């Protein structure tokens, strides 16, 4: 199969370039990550992140033929050749397919992604009805791969100011949690022309999410809550 890989070595002093690679691999049942590992076995200078190889750790997000995806759950047979693999857009490239994720993590931390509940702790679990728990479905499963946020033009333009879909989904995960008591503070933290309202609802994030989550819907609910508390 034919591949076209983004290569960049900061120490070389050379500009990034696209490298054409031929690999003898039967695509049946194989994922893109299998191919990248096979290419790395031929040329170990190719640098990439990977770990669980089953789509739950979020390490190996890359841009494949123009779309952000996890290499480990992207079947080779679905891809048209030459398969163009680039680092995630909108983040500084460290080397080859490895990007600096810090701007993404910073926005994640900025929404204070932890449960706040100042009531005395009961000696057993806090109760939560299955219906209340169901509100977290589609919100807690995020793996922080950054496929969504780096597919969002609003984040490309304002990575310091716009929280981005992953961070906003995370904020919603706690707003929606019946055990969390900090909703007013969480809404205050987001009520800002950039932090929340740079989302224009173009839904690139929904298209990109490898876990089938819908950050746009979560953002819509946050906006609705803000409207509701105004009126």
């Amino acid at each position, binding site marked *: 199969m034919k591949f076209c890989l983004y290569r960049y070595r900061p*120490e070389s002093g050379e500009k990034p370039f696209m490298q054409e690679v031929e690999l003898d691999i039967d695509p049946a049942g194989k994922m893109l990550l299998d191919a990248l590992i096979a290419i790395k*076995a031929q040329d*170990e200078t190719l640098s990439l992140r990977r770990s669980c190889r089953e789509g739950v750790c979020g390490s190996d997000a890359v841009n494949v033929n123009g779309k952000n995806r996890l290499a480990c759950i992207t079947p080779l047979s679905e891809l048209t050749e030459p398969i163009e693999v680039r680092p995630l857009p909108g983040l500084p490239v460290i*080397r080859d397919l490895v990007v600096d994720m810090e701007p993404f993590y910073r926005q994640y931390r900025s929404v204070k992604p*932890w449960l706040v509940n100042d009531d005395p702790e009961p000696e057993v679990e806090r109760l939560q009805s299955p219906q209340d728990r169901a509100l977290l479905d589609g919100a807690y*499963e995020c793996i922080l791969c950054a496929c969504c946020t780096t597919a969002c033009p609003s984040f490309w333009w304002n990575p310091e100011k716009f929280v981005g879909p992953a961070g906003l989904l995370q904020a919603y995960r706690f707003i929606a949690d019946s055990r969390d008591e900090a909703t007013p503070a969480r809404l205050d933290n987001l009520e800002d022309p950039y932090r929340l309202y740079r989302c224009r609802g173009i839904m690139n994030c929904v298209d990109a999410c490898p876990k089938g989550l819908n950050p746009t819907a979560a953002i819509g609910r946050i906006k609705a809550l803000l409207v509701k508390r105004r009126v």
Partner: protein
Amino acid sequence: MNTRRFDALIIGGGGAGLRAALQLARSDYTVAVVSKVFPTRSHTVSAQGGITAALANVDDDRWEWHMYDTVKGGDWLGDQDAIEFMCREAASAVYELEHMGLPFSRLDNGKIYQRPFGGQSKHFGGDQATRTCAAADRTGHALLHTLYQQNIQHRTQFFDEYFALDLLRDADGYCLGVSAFSIETGEPLLIEARATLLATGGAGRVFGNSSNAMINTGDGLGMVLRAGLPLQDMEFWQFHPTGIAGVGCLITEGVRGEGGYLLNKHGERFMERYAPHARDLAGRDVVARAIAIEIAEGRGCGPRADCVDLKLDHLGEQAIVEKLPGIRELSIRFAGVDPIKAPIPVAPTAHYMMGGIPTNLHGQVVAPARFGPEEPVPGLYAVGECACVSVHGANRLGGNSLLDLVVFGRAAGRHMLEYLRDNPYPRPLPGDAADASRARLARWEQPGNERITAITDDLRRTMQTRCGVFRTDTVLREGFTQLNELEARLAHAGLQDTSRVFNTARIEALELENLIGVARATLVSAISRTESRGAHTREDFPQRDDEHWLKHTLYSREGDQVDAKPVRLKPLTVESIRPKERVY
């Protein structure tokens, strides 16, 4: 070399490391976590089915029954004091996770959802219990993210994408921190701390077919071996019965807990023959052996007859979508099968290391020294899969590993606080403390013709074929000979990638050194144990031999020596559970 100083240092950002770090971060002491991946990429994230605790939310339950099941599941090799401690602390450890925000699934009455898992019983070996607390089938993900979130709230210092090289110790044996380097810049760094905890996880990537993440390369075990300390019970590796055939990705035991079952090519529920009472929910070693026998005797499914079928379509679409969404996704992606419509092809896959760095129940690393066989190494702790406390004995029960992480992570964190109070002053770091690490880094700048990936592939093939589910002396010794050849090749290996920036080839070389240490410990220990117990099945010694082998093995790298130490059959407060025949 640059130096950073903290009171406490954690190596590894999985569940065990983050639980211990949290205990320290809530105190006045400073704590740093070193992880070779961003913490939520750690392998804890892949745990599916749940965390076991006798909450009795669904059915009668008591921690004493959980303790009995754990002792029996481990084929009596587990230390009963540690097992009592873990099962007693289980409920509070789980409630605490709930208070931190872990999104457990819920029962109609609002309590934490629990499901049946293998090897669980009521009344000391009676009917099936329902003991495993779950967040759908993503419990590990929910647990790891919750603990990470708590750590950022408490401002734990993270060294993300730093690779730890070696322990720093002084002449009196005190652990003073680690040497490490930044993967991003290649810059070496010494991190000094009065107390260091290893929480580096398993080493399942030593096998060719594994459920483990690619980062599970036994780095903490390699560090301990290089420091001249022993490893315990390394012959005991759990092969999970249900990995996706040909790929190895895990399908949780929760599938069978929710009512799924295994079929051979004749459509027979063959587990009825191997475990008439517990059937598909027998111990994992029992089910894995049964599948291996079915396949070996020609009753396997699929075009190559190399797997069996895991049927769950009878559970109905709603139950699968609500309770098992993650494994449905995996099955569709990796097996091309939607379990709502058809059975999943599965086969045993290397899953969990019961052995590891010997510790006591405070997480202190213990080793034979002047005053006895279990002297704490001052300033050094280990918790989680890399440690052997030993609660899992010869075979771990499903749902007990996440429990192990949080119970002993918390216990170790607490003990480290005491240790820091008792040892208020840092000891001076000897001038030559980092020489060995410098030499290790320099070694990988030397040219060589052998390639790392080729040696790694051969190592995995050797361990898979010579040290798998069924073992004999002859086959294990063949494996040992091959391992010696691989080590000789490693001496001639070199890197083509000379960059300092994000040089993953160098990481893989350093990981291979650790894997080879793990493989050696495993093969030598497996050759020495001439009995069958739990996950260690010797065809040439098919019986359990309590007279000679009711004891732990201790492997040291110096001369490939294997020593033994007794199993603690005496619990803390309850009566001992005496060894008897293990039937399900």
